[in-house]
């Protein structure tokens, strides 16, 4: 299996892109063939990802495995360096698997204007970007993959998104949601990543002072970081800040979040799913992979601020959810709150907090992904997402309602389901943040976060009550509703199983991450 050791990850990254190319070899009219091409490539990718997980050495999860390092752009010392460790493995598997499910779901859910080939090609490109980001161990490579997701998502939202019109407050202009959301998403992310790139370059240059030669290599930079090479001066402060902007926009942290509700709401179902399940993780993952280990002193200095934004996000997101009238927008805002917990975990700068954020990311990916699937399917049937017009969904479509309720429960952090661990552990982390951080401050965050869990339960339950329970509205009395269909079952069942499995047996994730985050916290902060 030597080939697998060396080529496995590359295949995971580039198979989808190859699939996207292959799609164009299929005549436009042969939609089934196109679907099969997409399914096969993403399926194979997922199988490979699972195989990587199976062959992963969990005893050494703090080390990079399946590593490949090839010359790429020698002029600037950027290398094709990829690998997985315990931090990236769960996210990689999540990404690969959710993509297949998205393809399966797409099988008979197409938004107008119908263009199977184009849509699938974008999805496959997106997969390459997402998988690549999680395995990249070179800042330039990371940047490329990080940005690679932009275009496909931009087009997905812009072409197949929601054509509803909305009046923009203050400006007073009426915009078509998909167009507005697409460019907003694009601009926000690009704005952030422009600064992120500046940060990367600054690291690159400073690294030369210690190594003699500049490097973009993440492991090497981490090694420098563990010696606190970049110090805690203005330089490190600015670099961390620049990267913070880039990552925080992607997460998104309050107050950089406003692209998210619009993008999620406007995106086609699969787009929302991938956005929520994977794209949001790119930012928080980057904190763990890049910002913290390379600039630990700065991470410590920024931590209270990150924590503050995180808890503001938790409360703010939840309160905003309470005011929403659109199911999808509500779910979108819930991401702000949930990612707040993820970021709170990171802000504690402890192994527990990091672990919290990782399992929180995986859980949020599964749960919110499923929620968006459900919201999409419901919209597909009701042709509306107005909460006020829904109701009695449980009666019209018992299975759909049941899964919706289940997922909502998971989303509000019910213990025994995946969502709980992240919330609980990040609060636990906030109780005992890294030595040197203000205890009272983080414990205040902890209490606020805990209050946030109540608000989360509140909006989820009220949404559930208004959507699922009660008698169906009169307008639906003549409608024939099809309950969960076969492709929907196929796409959702793995998510449901995973949510329960991780809820009951979190070792599925923690088994990979714990050693890695303990090592991360130790090398970054000593002790």
């Amino acid at each position, binding site marked *: 299996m030597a080939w697998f050791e060396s080529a496995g990850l590359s295949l995971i990254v580039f198979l989808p892109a190859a699939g996207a190319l292959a799609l164009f070899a299929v005549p436009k009219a042969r939609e089934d063939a196109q679907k099969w091409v997409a399914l096969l490539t993403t399926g194979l990718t997922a199988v490979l990802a699972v195989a990587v997980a199976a062959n992963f050495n969990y005893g050494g999860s703090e080390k990079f495995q399946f590593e490949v390092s090839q010359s790429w*752009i020698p002029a600037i010392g950027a290398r094709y360096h990829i690998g997985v460790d315990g931090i990236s493995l769960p996210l990689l598997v999540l990404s690969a698997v959710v993509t297949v499910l998205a393809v399966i779901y797409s099988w008979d859910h197409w938004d107008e204007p119908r263009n199977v080939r184009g849509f699938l090609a974008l999805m496959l490109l997106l997969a390459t970007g997402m998988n690549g980001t999680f395995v990249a161990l070179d800042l330039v490579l990371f*940047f490329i993959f990080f940005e690679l997701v932009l275009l496909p998502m*931009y087009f997905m939202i812009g072409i197949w998104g929601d054509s509803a019109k909305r009046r923009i407050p203050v400006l007073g202009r009426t915009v078509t949601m998909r167009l507005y959301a697409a460019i907003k998403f694009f601009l926000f992310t690009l704005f952030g990543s422009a600064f992120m790139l500046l940060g990367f370059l600054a690291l690159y240059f400073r690294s030369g002072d210690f190594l003699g030669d500049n490097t973009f290599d993440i492991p090497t930079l981490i090694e420098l970081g563990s010696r606190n090479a970049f110090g805690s001066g203005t330089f490190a402060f600015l670099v961390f800040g620049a990267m913070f902007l880039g990552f925080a926009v992607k997460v998104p942290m309050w107050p950089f979040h406003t692209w998210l509700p619009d993008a999620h709401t406007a995106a086609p179902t699969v787009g929302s799913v991938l956005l929520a399940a994977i794209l949001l993780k790119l930012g928080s993952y980057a904190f763990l992979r890049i910002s913290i280990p390379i600039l630990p002193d700065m991470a410590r200095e920024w931590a209270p601020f990150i924590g503050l934004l995180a808890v503001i996000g938790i409360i703010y997101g939840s309160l905003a959810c309470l005011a929403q009238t659109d199911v999808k927008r509500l779910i979108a805002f819930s991401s702000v709150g949930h990612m707040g917990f993820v970021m709170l975990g990171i802000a504690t700068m402890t192994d527990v907090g990091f672990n919290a954020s990782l399992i929180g990311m995986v859980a949020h990916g599964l749960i919110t992904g499923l929620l968006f699937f459900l919201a999409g399917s419901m919209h597909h049937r009701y042709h509306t997402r107005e909460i006020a017009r829904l109701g009695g969904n449980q009666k019209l479509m018992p299975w759909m309602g049941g899964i919706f309720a289940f997922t909502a429960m998971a989303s509000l952090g019910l213990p025994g389901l995946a969502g709980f661990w992240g919330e609980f552990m990040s609060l636990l982390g906030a109780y005992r943040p890294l030595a040197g951080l203000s205890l009272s401050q983080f414990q205040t965050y902890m209490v606020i976060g805990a209050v946030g869990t109540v608000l989360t339960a509140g909006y989820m339950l009220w949404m559930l009550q208004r959507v699922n329970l009660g008698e169906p509205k009169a307008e639906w009395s003549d409608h024939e509703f099809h309950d969960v269909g076969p492709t929907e079952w196929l796409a959702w069942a793995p998510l449901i199983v995973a949510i329960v499995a991780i809820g009951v047996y979190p070792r599925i994730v923690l088994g990979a991450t714990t050693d890695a985050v303990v090592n991360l916290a130790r090398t970054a902060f000593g002790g």
Partner: protein
Amino acid sequence: MDLDYHALAPELVVAATILVVLGLDVALPRPRKYWTAFAGVLGLALAAVPLLTLAFGDGPETRSMLGGAYVVDGFALVLKAVFIVGGYLVLLMSVSYIESDRYYQGEYYLLMLTSILGSLVMASSRDLITLFVGLELVTGPLFLLAGWRKGDAKSNEASLKFFILGVLSTAILLYGMSFLYGLTGSVTFEGIREAGADLLDSGAFRLAVLFTLVGFGFKVTAVPFHFWAPDTYEGAPTPVTAYLSVGSKAAGFVGLLLLCYKALPSVTEIWGPALWVLAALSMTLGNLTALRQDNVVRMLAYSSIAQGGFILVPFAAAAVSNDPAVIQEAASATIVYVIIYAFMNLGAFGVVIAGARRTGSTMIDDWAGMWRYAPRLAVLGAMFFFSLAGIPPLAGWYAKFAMFLAILRPGNAWATALAVIAAVNAVIALVYYARIGKTMWMDHVPEGADTAGTVNPLTGSLALALGISALFVVVAGILPFEFAGVFADLAKVVTTGI
């Protein structure tokens, strides 16, 4: 006379092609004039052959002739390659455009080739005189070509504006050069470099340097020397515009590179801040203005002003450092940017030509929903415009990346400030590039648009040109290593002696 015919071969082939075209134009009857196009394209392709033998042959790395007045080295070779390939693509794009109207084909290709010849001369020039003559050889034919659509008042106007500002810039350039020569007593770059170091504090020398820069600033459409560009771009025949925005602009940058790095490396304090200002102004004003354009050509004009600003950025980096590595990197970044820019901008213009053929308009709104009826064109359009925006994995990212790398390397506050300005501008630029993407892909086809497709917008030669550009944009975006490595060496060449 120590002529190295091998080294001169590209110029000679192009010159011969010019004569062949002239002969054919005279000899052929009107319906057969398309042979001139064929000859031109073929000639340029042939000219590329000696480039390859020079680059990969066993000969000396640097071939200097005529007492050092004319040098063929790696730097010159790569830029000549860009000019030849760029010119080749422009000729390909011209074929259908020129055929489709009543143009003087033979003369058109002759002038185009002459201009390309000029840029070849510039790349090898090592003194002010050759540089100046080369520049005029590039520009002179273009004044005429801009007015090539003779019946079109816009084209006439484009030509006249271009010409008047062009001669003004020539005058200012020459006035500057006269002082450069006068104060250093030398017209060669080497001589100026040696003598210039002592003249750092001389105000007149500063004037000389700055006036010379202004002359090139005109060519590279740096704000505030850009005013001609939008009007001329819009009025001139589109392939000519493509060439103006790429070939002629690249020639301007070659001039700047030679001047700054070869002739004036010892007085970075003079040109550095000036180019800092020009870069910042060009990026910012170019981008802000491009935001408000409804005509895709005009938008591209302003975008190319802004792109020119990006290309100028590394100069400012070189200017704040005395470290040869930094200066080399800056030079390399400019070259890389110019090359990538050439391909993606040519591609964009190719799309404009095809789109205009298809829709009969260059107004952005008339292109709405093009994806529905001309998907390939829409894909190409998105590709080139997003590459211009610098979105990975399209080649444009590497251009911007190299630029940022260069400007941040010195770690100087001014340089970093320029990097931040560039970063903000990169985001602003996305707005209007994305707008075209949006229009072509996400808007509804306007009422009454001809979607049945009577015109195939991607005819043979144009398709070939677009295909080459697209291939480059993708491959260079994913694997920039192939030439990035080459450029690192080139930068050493251009900055030797610093």
